[in-house]
């Protein structure tokens, strides 16, 4: 049909097109390069134990980045995930002193659902900008956590053994956290690709007006989405406390910006309608490896941060260059 079929296409061009059609491949190549650099700088570091550690720390980040991916696909963002994860972790750890772990976990997920609901209604019904809405609820959530914290000072905190097992344990050298992560990841990918809800997430993010004319009720999609995002964040909090084993009032806050970065590095557009979760997972791995790389490098903290910023920028720019098809 087109001339390209007649003329021989240069190999570089073909390779580029191949990559553009499978954006995951260049991303994985970038990840491998980072790992190689790490191995060259510290020969021997890339061993079984290190791999397990990296996966353990990448998983909570990847789940939170999943929340960002899904909300970003609708043109939103969820900055409350850090607060929600922290809240559920802290509440679970303090409630488990009085209750059965299962009950404690249920109690801990209640605020997550509430915050998700408020976010969803604010964004979906009142049309508040998601950035502001989730920032606001995260402030409110933090405040509530502070108030709650004072009432449980004396009760102490405990981490149920199975959460610790899930968070830190290894089975034949494989992190147990994958038992939670693989189903979650499969579910997210499946939801986005093969369910009506997933289609609506993309549609609403691409052109809300068009979705409306097709009979989509925006507020329903958005509310459901933010509730799901919050619940995922709550579950992440439970996993994370199993990993860190120290309930603090700012436990998961440091994960918020990296979770946004992981989604964007993974190829999800912050303007909505474009992207997916598999890229995000690789994005989370890239960030985790990068953190290790910088920890291992002995240099002044300032230089370390500068390098971090530059590498994130470089990786994203290189990735965009590769997958761009024009």
């Amino acid at each position, binding site marked *: 049909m087109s001339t*390209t079929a007649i003329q021989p296409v240069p190999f570089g061009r073909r390779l580029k097109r191949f990559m553009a059609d499978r954006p995951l491949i260049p991303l994985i190549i970038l990840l491998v390069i980072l790992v190689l650099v790490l191995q060259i700088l510290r020969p021997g570091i890339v061993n079984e134990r290190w791999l397990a550690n990296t996966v353990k720390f990448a998983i909570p980040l990847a789940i939170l980045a999943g929340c960002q991916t899904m909300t970003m696909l609708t043109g939103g963002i969820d900055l409350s995930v850090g607060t929600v994860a922290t809240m559920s972790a802290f509440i679970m750890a303090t409630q488990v002193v009085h209750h059965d772990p299962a009950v404690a976990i249920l109690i801990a997920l209640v605020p997550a659902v509430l915050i998700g609901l408020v976010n969803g209604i604010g964004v979906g019904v009142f049309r508040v900008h998601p950035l502001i809405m989730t920032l606001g609820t995260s402030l409110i959530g933090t405040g509530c956590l502070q108030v709650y914290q004072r009432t449980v000072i004396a009760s102490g905190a405990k981490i149920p053994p199975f959460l610790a097992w899930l968070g830190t344990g290894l089975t034949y050298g494989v992190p147990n956290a994958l038992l939670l992560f693989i189903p979650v990841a499969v579910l997210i990918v499946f939801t986005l690709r093969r369910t009506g809800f997933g*289609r609506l997430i993309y549609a609403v993010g*691409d052109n809300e007006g*068009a*979705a409306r004319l*097709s*009979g989509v009720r925006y507020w329903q999609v958005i509310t459901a989405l933010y509730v799901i995002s919050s619940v995922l964040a709550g579950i992440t909090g439970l996993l994370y406390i199993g990993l860190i084993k120290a309930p603090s009032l700012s436990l998961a806050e440091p994960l918020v910006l990296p979770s946004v970065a992981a989604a964007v590095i993974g190829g999800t557009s912050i303007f909505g*309608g474009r992207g997916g979760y598999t890229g995000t997972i690789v994005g989370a791995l890239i960030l985790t490896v990068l953190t290790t790389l910088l920890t291992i490098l002995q240099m002044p903290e300032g230089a370390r941060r500068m390098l971090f910023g530059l590498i994130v920028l470089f990786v994203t720019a290189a990735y965009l260059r590769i997958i761009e098809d*024009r």
Partner: protein
Amino acid sequence: MTTNPLLDATGVVKTYGAVVALRNASLSVLPGEVHALMGANGAGKSTLVKILTGAIRADAGHILIRGEAREVRSPADARRAGLLPVYQEPSLIPDLDVASNLRLTGTPVEPFRAWVRELGIPDLDIRDIARDIPLAVLRVLDLARALAVEPDVLLLDEMTAALPANLAEKVLEVVRRQGDSGRSVIFISHRFVEISALCDRATVLRDGETVGVVDIEPGVEERIVEMMLGARIEKTQVAARQASQAASPRDSRARLGVANLRVGTKLNDVSFDLANGEVAGVVALEGQGQDELFAALAGSIRPSGGTIEVDGKPVKFAHPADAIRAGIAYVPGDRTEALTMQRSVRENIALPFSAALRNWGPINMAQERSRVVSAIERLQIDTRAQREVQRLSGGNQQKVTIARWIAAEAQTILCFDPTRGIDVRTKQEIYKLLRELADQGKSVLFYTSELEEVQRVCDRVIVIFGGRVVDVFPVELADEPALMRAAYGLPRGAKEDVGILADIHSSPVAKP
């Protein structure tokens, strides 16, 4: 007298990834001529205009302006070189008022105002925000803005497509005078009437290649069509409907009943019925309330009064979802309103399936696929670039908006100007499709800005003027003069000779 071309482009190539938008396009425009650029949907007309005016870069090609090779690297460059485009989409900044938009482009205000008045919009307030201005007026403002700087070459990309007849007529008038005063115009349109009335020569594009340049003279249309499509198009046109053919016996219960519908100040009192198996045409000048009528029937806005009945039962639509549940589908005129541009053709067509809460679960992929494929086949959508709808050409995008509702098996389809900016063959296909739908017992409400279409597709004509139904008549009586008269709110059979150029505001309107 030697006439050197003012603008001469040869061997222009542009590819988007695997898609070749322009293969080998050339265009040569002489001073003082109105030059038509013709081609089927997806031939590359807009792409060529964008390249000539620096909006995108060509991969290869030579462009000479007044005999000199001049690099036009941005629209600003083009402007300096005397090339001024009016693109297919409005180019005013939505959040700025008109005055600021003029300042931004360095357009003198007084000539602009004069042109706006000349183009048939007497009461423009230049402090209005562009976002609040209706599409048709925006197109005219774009044109006036281009005219005000007296360009050497004016490039009009489907300028008249979204305009109602009265405004389109003024535009043609003005463009003709441009040619007379020694300036050149490149004119893109799918309407042969306009081409033959206006243009001196035509360049025909097919699949990104210039296949010929012809002088416009009586009878040339046939040749152009042949060149455009690469083969002789079968002459069978959907014949004007005869009353005897009308599928719906009058006694059958109305599918859609509208009584005394009111929306804000725009739509005052509209009543009509739509039967199963019927295509009813809505005829109206720009801004007579037809937008509101369609939006209200689609559940997109809430009427302020009146009733809507579906199959005899009164309904209230709070959301398009309600209308869709009642079997009413809406195809808006502006395809960017209906499509999710970054998603695939398949997802766009299947979108209404997943809208209802109970369909949020897993999708039956095989079933979806077969429905989508049959809709694509039925509309003959060119799916070469189907991974993203935005890569389809305008006409194919338009087809996707309709295909969605064919796949969803909607009982009633509200089509608002579905042939806007579509080539002749596709138009024929759409006419045929609408008739077929009617023959299957579905009902169609059809607004069009091209009056001749009414005769081709409709069973009945509903004329709206000033937010009211002023007339309803069968299609046999609907020749163009009759429609035009009715559209201006004149009673049927009135003797006055009211030309197309009559001012709406001074025309003798039946006052409410």
